[in-house]
């Protein structure tokens, strides 16, 4: 019996040590970014664009606006596409074999490195004679986010109890009406979580927009303009000592956005869970 207790205690120790490593990494990351980010953050940093004669001076407003202009529309489109796919994947519409194949495709697309989406859009962009712009970057982000959002919505919808749907059908509801009015409401917390997950991923991704969104020191005025974005700015500036203040500031803003999204996700899902039937 002693041997068994000793084994358990050894592993308990290892478990706590592992947990400390994980939590420690998080603390280090946040600590580093927060400490350096806050010190580089100033009113000037977030309200000005880089000055034309000194690109490393000024602020990062161009990147902030650029990121929002890229990620928000992309998330909207991806969500609309996503909810359509996710609802259609229910067994009421498609043969289960087909819907499982589509789920498999979505899983692969989720796992594909984001730079592949970047290359894909870039190639088509060149082929169509377009230049790097918000439009192309937005498309790349949409493609990146669709699998994520769709699969999350799909999982939420799968958990809707079949009795709920049967109840709606027996009242004379069509498949489409049931999908839109009943299923989506029941699965709403999960759907919302999926959308926020996609948004978080989209706003933080650099590889897909590296070649497709281009770069600019100014705030874009049309969707055909190139634009800077927070992740690409960090990527471009991190190794230059004079660029590091901006990189820190951008990283800090990104982290704040990520935490806000995470918190919102929890709060909103909890709020909408009240309407959900267990």
């Amino acid at each position, binding site marked *: 019996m002693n041997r*068994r*207790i000793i084994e*358990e205690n050894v592993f*308990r120790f*290892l*478990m*706590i040590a*592992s*947990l400390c*490593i*994980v939590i420690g*990494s*998080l603390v*280090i*990351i946040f600590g*580093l*970014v927060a400490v350096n980010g806050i010190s580089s953050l100033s009113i000037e940093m977030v309200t000005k664009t880089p000055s034309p004669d000194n690109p490393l001076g000024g602020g990062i407003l161009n990147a902030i606006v650029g990121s929002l202009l890229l990620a928000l529309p992309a998330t909207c489109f991806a969500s609309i*596409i996503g909810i*359509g796919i996710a609802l*259609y994947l229910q067994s009421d519409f*498609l043969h289960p074999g087909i819907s499982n194949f*589509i789920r*498999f*495709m979505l*899983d*692969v697309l989720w*796992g*594909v*490195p984001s*730079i*592949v*989406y970047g*290359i*894909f859009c870039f*190639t088509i962009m060149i082929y169509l004679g377009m230049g790097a712009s918000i439009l192309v970057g937005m498309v790349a982000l949409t493609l990146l986010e669709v699998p994520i959002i*769709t699969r999350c919505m799909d999982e939420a919808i799968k958990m809707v109890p079949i009795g709920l749907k049967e109840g709606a059908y027996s009242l004379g509801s*069509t*498949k*489409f*009406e049931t999908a*839109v009015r009943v299923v989506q409401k029941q699965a709403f917390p999960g759907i919302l979580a999926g959308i926020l*997950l996609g948004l*978080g*991923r989209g706003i*933080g*991704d*650099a*590889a897909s927009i590296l*070649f497709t969104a281009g770069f600019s020191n100014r705030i874009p005025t049309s969707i055909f303009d190139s634009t800077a974005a927070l*992740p690409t700015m*960090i*990527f471009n500036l*991190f190794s230059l000592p004079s660029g590091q203040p901006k990189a*820190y500031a951008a*990283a800090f803003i*990104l*982290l704040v956005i*990520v935490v806000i999204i*995470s918190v919102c996700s*929890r709060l909103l899902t909890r709020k909408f869970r009240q309407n959900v039937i267990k």
Partner: protein
Amino acid sequence: MDKRKLRDLIGTKLMLMVVLFISSIFFLIFILLFYKSTLVLERTSIIDVLFSSTWNPDYGQFGLAPVIVGTMLVTGIALIIAIPISLLSAIYIAEYAPKRIRRILRPFIDVLAGVPSVVYGLCAFLILVPLVKEVIAPWFGVQSTGLCIFTAAIALSVMVFPIIISLCIESFDAIPIALKEASLSVGATKWETIKKVVFRASAPSVIAAILLGFGRAFGETIAVNMVIGNMFNQIPSSLFQPGQTLASLIASKYGELMSIPLHESALMLVALILFVVVLLFNLAGLLILRRAKKRWKY
């Protein structure tokens, strides 16, 4: 036609179109990558590409061997570090932690999962690189700039933690409590129950989690690019030498090589390899899960 029926028809057809759209994206990407890779494969054989170390684009030589080795090293080491740490953390959070601590830890893990790759890369650059250069490499008696395979592997392992941990916690939580009671009631300790029953029952999900973690590590572009040193003229002889991975290579070289079709084609081939590997691993994961579900119904 009745208005409701019309709405139903249009709505259903729209959804169908969207589904077809996404399916076609899948095939379009594959076909595009494949098509663009053919150019380079006409000039060099696939064997040369995979096994040679000579990278001389102007002479049509695209030896990827150092990059492939680099990818395997970085991914392998990252997983070797991440898997035990993640599993142990997940077991603790799911089975041992008091409720209050659990409630704080779960959001922590979620936030860790949401941190963008660039930020991981930035932190790795600012902390790990000097650490490796000043402390770790000298400890092994090696000189290093800090921009090396080892640094990339450590950074990757941290990125993989939250993926494996959160999936494992979910699957441990899904084990019915009565199963644990069944084990405890014959006199097993808590740890023995976890070792022999909980783990076994959730093994397929744990494997799926590890495969997902592998996918993340394998495909990570940005963070790796920032700390690995981006050199691949020879197969790395030490972990503290700079190296390169497949995904990071594309990010590095796309700018300079995209104007020349042959060079672009080589990078497309790399992208194709990435796509195919992700596809194969997803397939493997699916088959494992399916087979395991047939044997054990939980």
